[in-house]
């Protein structure tokens, strides 16, 4: 066989928008999502959930008049292993044993051969509770999931010396990920006594580890295979572990495959949301605008269980000062416990919450000083050589000025008022977002990838990165192909089946391109060299280590938080109807520094989609609660933007290579979510003269602020 080493068989693919790998399957309806999988003999599963926010399970009764011989029932006592959903802290049970800490908490699992029998069985289960008073408001919360503090310089002295101290408190609410494909898993018993999971998930090895532990199986007895995933956005980072364990428990007890597919109502009612939060800022400046001190209290509502709250808090807090160079910074972060359903991962992971506040603070300080907020950003923004709040000295690829200039250069002239009741305004935001896990996280993960050259001369990329729509299967092939010097069409990215692929870590944290893509590039470079002297089949494996210059201290929260940061600047135009209070986003410019865009069309797609999620969070998406339950737990009442709500979005990508990323690339999956909300609130102020401190900016809140 001949591997074309010196003469690549096609033009280089990196930097070109090649057709996405899964495109044909997705436009023809052939792509198989979890609920599309046909598994002969599979039963249907359902979860029985708590209807009180806090209390004790007094009694679970199966109506003796019902024929239970056709139904499998699983309760906590059927769990062979630990009754724990493996993640950060061992506080969340797979099924309630005694204590109930939130509404919709799983208590029992049922499965039957057909949906009618299953529904009838569910109706014949009754649960009695001993009800305890719940903590539902963040202001009343005392239990703590996590706390941290970041200290730089002497904040108290700097605030005392400041000409002006501006103080403001901001509030942000829940947000549902609202992937269009609900959660689901299908568990299939294996001959070795284990179980194979097919599911909608973004972290196959998280699910693997969780199922191994709860079912007391060996690693070899559990195989996790993601189906096509119909959107995730962080919502399928930790929750699928619970769905998979439940499906596996039913399948093992029933000794047959079980499908556990949530409907939309169950998905919204029970699964994790973006953390609500309260962010208090005190910023001290000199009269000339010199930034002296930032004192920030960042408090998140973690809900009933810890889930990922410590790391959401961490990322949010690290980004809480915004992309600005300030000599004195104090950030105090706390994630508190309430008796509401647990909150978890959602694109941005705390940074949208904290940078909503930090960007509006720029506006408030500018207003207090009578300066332009654009000029103030230019004065404050991080440059090469500056240090961040954690004391990280930035040495390259700092794109603040590039994205700010690009956004302004592409901003159209302002719109004249079209009617007395319609006011137009414009607002800006400048944000940053670290790529990969925080601090020592990537070293702890020690991600592994493999690249194989088959005896037929084709190449296989093996990673645990999961295609969730973001383009992993295309981009990793492009990176490998260009490093190998072959056509990208000769490179296959294999399905991340845990029995086949090494553990390259979760598909989260804007890490797939920069961290895992970087490893794939290293493996490809090795294979290319070896192919000059060795015959296939060949396999190269790489293990991730942080660059040697990275130093991070978990105890003091000091050091190099991320190897690199993406930067973005948006300019949002709004039209506010002064009679109804409705704010429409009429245009949005997003300039983004991805380092280098491996696939420009997909990079733009990440920006456009993330920006619209940010617009939804800023204007439409409001979770209303009653007695610990989400009131708007259906798609008819939880409103996300339609094509008519979406503004024209113009994306400008600027090159600003990072030397440690493959082809200069950094991570951009999350940063688009960070920027729209503060820009929109600033635009509403520009249009109306009133400041909102709370999201979402609904017509009701705008009218209230206007004093209408």
């Amino acid at each position: 066989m001949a591997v074309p080493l010196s003469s690549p068989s096609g033009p280089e693919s990196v930097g070109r928008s090649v057709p996405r790998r899964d495109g044909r399957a997705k436009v023809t309806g052939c792509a198989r999502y979890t609920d599309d999988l046909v598994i002969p003999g599979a039963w249907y599963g359902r979860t029985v959930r708590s209807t009180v926010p806090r209390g004790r399970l007094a009694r679970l009764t199966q109506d003796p008049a019902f024929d239970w011989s056709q139904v499998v029932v699983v309760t906590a006592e059927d769990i062979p292993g630990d009754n724990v959903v493996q993640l950060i802290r061992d506080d969340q049970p797979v099924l309630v044993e005694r204590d109930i800490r939130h509404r919709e908490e799983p208590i029992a699992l049922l499965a039957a051969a057909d949906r009618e029998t299953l529904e009838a069985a569910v109706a014949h289960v009754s649960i009695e509770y001993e009800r305890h008073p719940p903590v539902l408001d963040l202001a009343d919360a005392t239990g703590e999931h996590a706390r941290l503090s970041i200290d730089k310089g002497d904040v108290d002295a700097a605030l005392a010396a400041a000409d002006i101290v501006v103080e403001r408190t901001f509030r942000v609410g829940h947000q549902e990920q609202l992937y269009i494909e609900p959660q689901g898993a299908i568990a299939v018993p294996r001959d070795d006594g284990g179980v194979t999971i097919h599911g909608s998930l973004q972290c196959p090895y998280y699910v693997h580890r969780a199922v191994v532990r709860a079912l007391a199986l060996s690693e070899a007895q559990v195989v996790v295979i993601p189906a096509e995933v119909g959107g995730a956005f962080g919502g399928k980072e930790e929750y699928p572990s619970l769905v998979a364990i439940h499906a596996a428990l039913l399948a093992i007890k029933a000794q047959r495959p079980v499908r556990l597919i949530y409907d939309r109502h169950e998905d919204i009612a029970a699964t994790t949301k973006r953390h609500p939060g309260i962010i208090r800022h005190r910023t001290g400046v000199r009269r000339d605008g010199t930034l002296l001190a930032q004192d920030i209290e960042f408090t998140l509502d973690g809900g009933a269980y810890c889930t990922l709250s410590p790391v959401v808090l961490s990322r949010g807090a690290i980004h809480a000062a915004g992309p600005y160079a300030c000599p004195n910074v104090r950030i105090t972060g706390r994630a508190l416990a309430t008796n509401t359903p647990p909150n978890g991962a959602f694109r941005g992971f705390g940074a949208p919450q904290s940078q909503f506040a930090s960007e509006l603070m720029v506006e408030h300080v500018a207003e207090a000083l009578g300066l332009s907020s654009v000029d103030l950003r230019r004065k404050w923004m991080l440059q090469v050589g500056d240090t961040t709040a954690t004391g990280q000295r930035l040495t390259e690829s700092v794109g603040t000025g590039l994205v700010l200039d690009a956004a302004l250069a592409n901003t159209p002239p302002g719109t004249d008022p079209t009617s007395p009741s319609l006011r137009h305004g414009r607002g800006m935001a400048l944000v940053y977002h670290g790529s990969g896990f925080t601090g020592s996280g990537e070293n702890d993960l020690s991600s592994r990838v493999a690249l194989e050259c088959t005896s037929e001369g084709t190449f296989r990329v093996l990673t645990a990165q999961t295609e969730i729509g973001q383009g992993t299967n295309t981009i990793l092939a492009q990176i490998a192909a260009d490093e190998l010097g072959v056509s990208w069409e000769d490179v296959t990215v294999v399905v991340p089946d845990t029995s086949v692929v090494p553990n390259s870590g979760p598909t989260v944290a804007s890490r797939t391109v920069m961290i895992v893509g970087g490893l794939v590039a290293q493996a490809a470079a090795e294979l290319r060299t070896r192919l000059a002297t060795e015959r296939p089949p060949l396999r190269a494996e790489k293990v991730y280590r942080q660059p040697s210059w990275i130093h991070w201290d978990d105890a003091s929260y000091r050091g190099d938080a991320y190897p690199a940061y993406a930067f973005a600047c948006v300019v949002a135009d709004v039209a506010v109807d002064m009679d109804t209070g409705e704010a429409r986003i009429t245009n949005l410019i997003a300039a983004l520094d991805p380092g280098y865009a491996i696939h420009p069309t997909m990079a733009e797609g990440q920006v456009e989609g993330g920006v619209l999620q940010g617009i939804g969070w800023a204007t439409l998406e409001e979770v209303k609660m009653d007695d610990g339950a989400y009131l708007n737990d259906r798609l008819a009442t939880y409103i996300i933007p339609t094509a008519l709500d979406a503004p024209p979005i113009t994306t400008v990508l600027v090159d600003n290579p990072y030397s440690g990323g493959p082809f200069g690339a950094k991570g951009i999956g999350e940063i688009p979510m960070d920027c729209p909300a503060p820009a929109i609130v600033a635009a509403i102020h520009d249009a109306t003269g009133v400041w909102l401190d709370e999201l979402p900016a609904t017509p009701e809140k705008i009218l209230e602020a206007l004093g209408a």
Partner: protein
Amino acid sequence: MITFTVNGNAVTVDASGARRLLDVLREDLGMTGTKEGCGEGECGACSVLIDSAVVNACLVAVGQVEGAEVLTVEGLERDGELAPLQRAFIDHGAAQCGICTPGMLLAAHALLARTPNPTAHDVRIAIAGNLCRCTGYTKIIEAILACRIRAT
């Protein structure tokens, strides 16, 4: 027994007329290209055409389609060739996770059949019943507009 046409082929199903067209397509006929996103007519992932009109298959009882022509995403290809809309969705990056794509394609197909040269605003109205959480709709609208001339 209920008889109707799916993608040009006559089918007869032995099903209660009260069952959802969505379930009959997916389970009885094995055509899983039509997706369920909410089950209450809000998301449009299950959009199909019945006698050229866009409907949510989760809200249609199969008894209602007796004698009708149903078009699903599986019927857009012709002799193994992608339809121009399908090609445009790939070329413009209009499909990300892809779960809304079948319904989106059918809403667009219906639009172009009745309005061969739509404006961007026409496109937004036509797909307003189809939710997408990945794309911000930008590239979907571009892809549909790119099919204007070919559709005339």
